[in-house]
């Protein structure tokens, strides 16, 4: 097979095969440190092997037998990639649990709820949490916040950033690393600098903004999350041509999905609710209609249950339907502290 053609030593080849790497494609999306761990060799050796592999796969292409379709990936590769993707924590343990660790990168997550339930709060919390440094388990990235309603309040973002830094400093005592490097030198103001804030005032501006994102993110590769608060507001006005609205919305959804995949970032869309008249009763549903509901990978609905705020996974290809409580405090989104809290699996 292809491995036989690689100019590597026999012992290396033997180690690769016994570890389960039987073809070039299984090595294509691997990081040197993972390979080194698997084969129990040094990082440099692993790097050397991967370099040879990438050269080998380049020679393979004119053959045509290597990849079925250019750009296609095997499911094995995709699983590897998915496992290495990080999530953005929401700072609420229960919410992170039902989301499978947090808001996932490379996916579009839609979060909707009634006014006052905490959508903007969650948006700001994510814009701050994406900046948590890597050695604290975060992504150490930047955020793009597209505000269509004017709900982003500077002092609230500062408050949430300050609480995040305090939590990190509190946790640094538990980390067994070099104390010097763990010292959180960040100030709340630094967190604000890493949020690229855009205010759009009409649907045309919103669409232009989303078209511009590709260029912007190419120039700012450290952006890990794009938050749009809210994606619906400008589209709920009267559109004389409803077909135009549907076209615009689906075009927007496609672009956002492409962005998420291309740059491996998380796209979070905050949505409003409206009432839908079905079978004689009114039901609450997310705005923008049924066709929009297909545009997002995951859908989370925030709602009131008595005096508590709950989040419910409405649609997801990989998460099961469940609901979890959360709370909005002075520090931002946090775990709910009620006595009878539990995660309900639907």
């Amino acid at each position: 097979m292809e491995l036989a053609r690689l100019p590597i030593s026999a012992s290396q080849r033997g180690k690769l095969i016994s570890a389960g790497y039987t073809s070039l494609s299984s090595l294509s999306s691997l990081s040197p440190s993972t390979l080194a761990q698997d084969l129990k060799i040094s990082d440099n050796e692993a790097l050397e092997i991967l370099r040879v592999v990438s050269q080998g796969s380049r020679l393979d292409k004119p053959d045509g037998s290597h990849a079925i379709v250019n750009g296609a990936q095997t499911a094995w590769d995709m699983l590897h990639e998915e496992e290495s993707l990080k999530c953005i924590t929401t700072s609420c343990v229960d919410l992170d649990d039902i989301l499978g660790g947090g808001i996932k990168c490379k996916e579009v997550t839609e979060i909707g709820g009634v006014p006052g339930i905490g959508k903007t709060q969650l948006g700001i919390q994510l814009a701050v949490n994406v900046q948590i440094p890597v050695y604290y388990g975060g992504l150490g990235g930047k955020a793009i916040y597209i505000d269509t309603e004017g709900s982003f309040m500077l002092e609230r973002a500062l408050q949430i950033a300050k609480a995040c830094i305090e939590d990190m400093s509190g946790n640094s005592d538990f980390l067994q690393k070099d104390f010097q490097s763990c010292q959180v030198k960040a100030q709340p103001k630094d967190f604000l600098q890493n949020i690229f804030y855009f205010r759009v005032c009409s649907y045309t501006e919103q669409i232009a903004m989303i078209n511009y994102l590709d260029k912007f993110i190419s120039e700012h590769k450290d952006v890990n999350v794009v938050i749009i608060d809210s994606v619906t507001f400008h589209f709920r006005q009267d559109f004389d041509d409803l077909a135009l609205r549907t076209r615009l919305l689906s075009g927007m959804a496609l672009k956002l999905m492409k962005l998420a995949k291309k740059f491996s970032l998380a796209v979070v869309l905050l949505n409003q609710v409206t009432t839908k008249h079905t079978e004689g009763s009114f039901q609450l549903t997310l705005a923008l209609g049924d066709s929009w509901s297909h545009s997002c990978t995951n859908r989370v609905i925030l709602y009131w249950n008595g005096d508590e705020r709950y989040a419910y996974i409405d649609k997801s290809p990989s998460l099961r339907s469940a609901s979890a409580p959360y709370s909005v405090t002075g520090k931002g989104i946090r775990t709910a502290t009620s006595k009878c809290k539990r995660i309900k699996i639907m």
Partner: protein
Amino acid sequence: MIPQNLLQNPLALTTQKCTLGCPILDRCLAGGVPCNSITELVAESGSGKTQLCLQLVLSAQLPTSLGGLAASSLYIHSEFPFPSRRLQQLSQSFRSSYSHVLDSEYNPLDFVLVRGVQSADQLFDVLLKMDSVLLRPPTQLPVRLIVIDSIAALFRGEFENTPFDLKRRSSLFFKISGKLKTLAERFGLAVVVTNQVVDFVGQAGGLNGLRIGNLGSLWSSGRRVCAALGLAWANCVNSRLFLSRNEEIVGEVTGLGGVGAGDTVSRLTRRHLHVIFAPHLPESSCEFVISREGVLGVDR
């Protein structure tokens, strides 16, 4: 497109706010009514919405060092007549309280622009023409506060209860709110809108519940109420404040004919300002009274 520089004013890392004219009320709202957003005042009639709005158009004229916006205001009213006598009364006490900062010739009424509208379409027309008024204000101070009192009155009569009319109504909400927010963003305005209440019918809580905001139920004058104009309008405002008015029994005097006959009961009207939802405020409430000098918070 360039992202906004959030740190452009490193000394004042908060949104600018307009004081309400009373430090206790300001404390409840973390400084006052914020600029660049729409704040809604929901209350029954006679609860003090108009009083608070009149007070705001005066306190907006204060210099920024005292929490004002150093600006004129535009008061758009839909209920006639405009309470000009009360405004005059308030302006007199305003002048005497702030005589140390204001000129002796200063007339606060010179800095209030008043416009009456009678339908939602008329309101939208006024808003479309606003750009020119805001760019070249007829007063010496720029206009930085817009009050619409009340938005509910413009929508109550014209629309029937059919799905078609309701849909038409709600797209009008988003049009008006979109225009207001664009103006607010472009000119740094604070927008205050007043709304009425209707009796609450329906379920709250659960996936289909219509609970909006921090309070599970809103009570005023012993009735359970909710804001008028429904869920669609609630999505159009940034913050919602509720003014409640409830009567409390404070004393009982037994009449001459024994228990039950001829009893007099003293009632006191207690008024509260509640934060229903706001992106920058926790749930809080504050008691206030309405006096000759205006709306004043009470520390109890």
